[in-house]
């Protein structure tokens, strides 16, 4: 374990934003940080990055408190994006590289390399305020990675990006992951988290709800989701106790299997109702886990 957050509590006047929260992030992992709106994600990230001090608890990296790690150690993309509107793209990126500890030459080289990578060549001498929102976000995302930090903390990195740039960013993140960098990111899009994260933490109202390896979490939830597709009487399931329809898709129906329901008897009923094309027991999606644990949609 590298990043260890121990019993963090942060109050703002009479609101407790984070309440006795502990979690850990393994070095080199792709870590999903989840929770509904107002769960305390941003506050926790700020505490991790030592932007605000917790009222109680501490965060360490290999035993070292975060404020002693040096400014080149992490890259941070806050949820509220912001750049100096009057600065030019190249100028701004070199400046961000410099304040994260790169020397002049290195900042120049890395800026040129990343501008190429993110296809911003034509905009290099434009002012930030002249750029579209999406391009501004690209510039800011580059700014968090320019100095090749050990730890990347990205708050909703994909929001506002088109599919092409989303794919590009995913690629870049996976590349950094391969080089052993630790990446923590939050997202509302559970499918994106599911696609790239190995470990997650789910918080709600400042409390820890779930924490651990995503596969293990899913397994522990049990194979309770049943997907059936058949030609014939699709309403056969009415009679079966413990079966709850979750969704009717174009080519299949999705059910939650109650504790007293037996998949084998469901299959027998289905076979009597018609020609079974698909009968599948699956793990719940992260989306479903989220809804179940937190009670509201992401």
């Amino acid at each position, binding site marked *: 374990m590298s990043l260890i957050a121990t019993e963090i509590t942060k109050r703002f006047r009479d609101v407790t934003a984070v309440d006795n929260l502990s979690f850990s992030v393994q070095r080199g992992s792709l870590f999903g940080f989840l929770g509904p709106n107002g769960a305390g994600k941003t506050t926790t990230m*700020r505490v991790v*990055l*030592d*932007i*605000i001090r917790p009222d109680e608890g501490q965060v360490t990296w290999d035993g070292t408190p975060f404020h002693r790690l040096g*400014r080149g150690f*992490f890259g*941070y993309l*806050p949820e*509220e*994006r*912001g*750049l*100096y*509107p*009057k*600065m030019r793209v190249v100028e701004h990126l070199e*400046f*961000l590289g*410099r*304040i*994260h500890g790169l020397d002049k030459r290195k900042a120049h080289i890395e800026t040129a390399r990343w501008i190429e990578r993110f296809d911003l060549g034509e905009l290099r001498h434009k002012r930030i305020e002249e750029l579209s929102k999406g391009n501004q976000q690209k510039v*800011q995302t580059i*700014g968090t990675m320019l100095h090749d930090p050990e730890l990347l903390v990205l708050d909703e990195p994909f929001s506002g990006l088109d599919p092409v740039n989303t794919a590009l960013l995913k690629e870049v993140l996976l590349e950094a992951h391969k080089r052993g960098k630790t990446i923590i990111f939050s997202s509302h899009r559970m499918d994106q988290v599911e696609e790239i994260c190995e470990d997650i933490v789910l918080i709600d109202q400042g409390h820890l709800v779930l924490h651990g390896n995503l596969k293990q979490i899913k397994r522990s939830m049990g194979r309770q989701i049943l997907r059936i597709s058949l030609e014939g009487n699709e309403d056969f399931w009415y009679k079966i106790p413990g079966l709850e329809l979750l969704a009717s898709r174009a080519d299949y129906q999705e059910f939650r299997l109650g504790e007293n329901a037996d998949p084998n008897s469901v299959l027998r009923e289905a076979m009597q109702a018609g020609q079974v094309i698909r009968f599948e027991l699956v793990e719940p999606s992260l989306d479903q886990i989220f809804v179940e644990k937190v009670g509201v949609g992401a």
Partner: protein
Amino acid sequence: MIPILVKREFTSRVKGAAYIITTILGIVVFVGSSFLPPLLQRLSESMTPSHIDLVIYEQPGESSILPYLEQVSVEREGFTVRSGSDLDEREAYRMVLDEGLSGLLLVDGPLYTLVSPDVSNVMLNDEIETILNLAVSRQNAVRLGLSAEDMASLFRRADLRVREVSPLGVDGEEVDSAAHTQAMVLAYFLLFMIYMALIMYGNMVASGVAEEKSSRIMEVMISTVKPLELMLGKIIGVGSLGLLQFLIWTGTGLLMNTIGASGALGMVLGVSEPLSTIPLDTVLWFGLYFVLGYFLYASIFAAAGALVSRVEEVSQVVSIIMMLIIVGFFGAYISFLNPNSTFAVAASLIPFTSPMVMFSRIVLGSPSVLEVLASVLILLASVLVGAWVSGKIYRIGVLMYGKRPTLRQVLTLVRG
């Protein structure tokens, strides 16, 4: 770290329209003011009446003022006088209007009334009053039997010289009153420079911080850079912009000063001597109090900027700080009259007023070494405390959006 921040602050603003425009405007003022004195002179010449024609209408009495006015008209060019006593009043009015005379002077005992077609010409009225007084005092002299010499000695002014006695018992040098006036004008000019700089660049710091907050770059900055470093980078960056601007302006002033005898600074200082007469120690004291004063106020301005969410709100919070600066300015102004009064001594120790008051006192009077030392030390300590407190407010304020905190909440932040 700080040099990188200073450089960004400097380069991003130095090319900005606002900065270039104020710099050019300042140059225009300096250059323009060197052409101003001859222009003003010509203007005032055109306004003084070139010729005064008076008609005197006297009530018959014991002694007439007319002979004395005639005496003055002989000595004074551009003044003629005639009697209108043989006319009736109505005819006298007619004459003034028809012949375009300056006015009709009605004399009734000690009461003089000027009837003029141009009553609002203050310069004309003043001139006539001077002439009339001259004539009246001559009339009185004759009545009292005084000779011309007696008159001259009656109006001779005393020649007062001022010499300072120092506590050590050594006689001070004689104070040259012309030099004192020059020192006063110089002190006033430099004082005004400090005042302007505090307000201009202080506001620039406050709105700069608010801009960083409203553009939301602050969170990225604060995750990388210590709040105090961020604040100092801003203060030094804006300060260096101000320094450059002042150097350009002073350079222009010097240049104009060397070119024309009635140079810009010469005009401002009321002297036509070159600027090199400004003593070096004055320049050094100016530098010291300027820098310390700027740091103290700029850090307060920065904290104020950190407390608002949008640039538009800046002017509301900085108004209190502006009041402090204005109080300092007027304190210094009052101290001019008596640089060693209790008020001046007290104001030169209080850090918010001392940059302006103590500097003025040094240029004008001679405060004791102990006073100067105390003032500098208190100011220096205040700069450090101010930076520390502002740094704390800044650290928390920069991430606070929405409703502006109350003063009590700010105090809790500082203590916590």
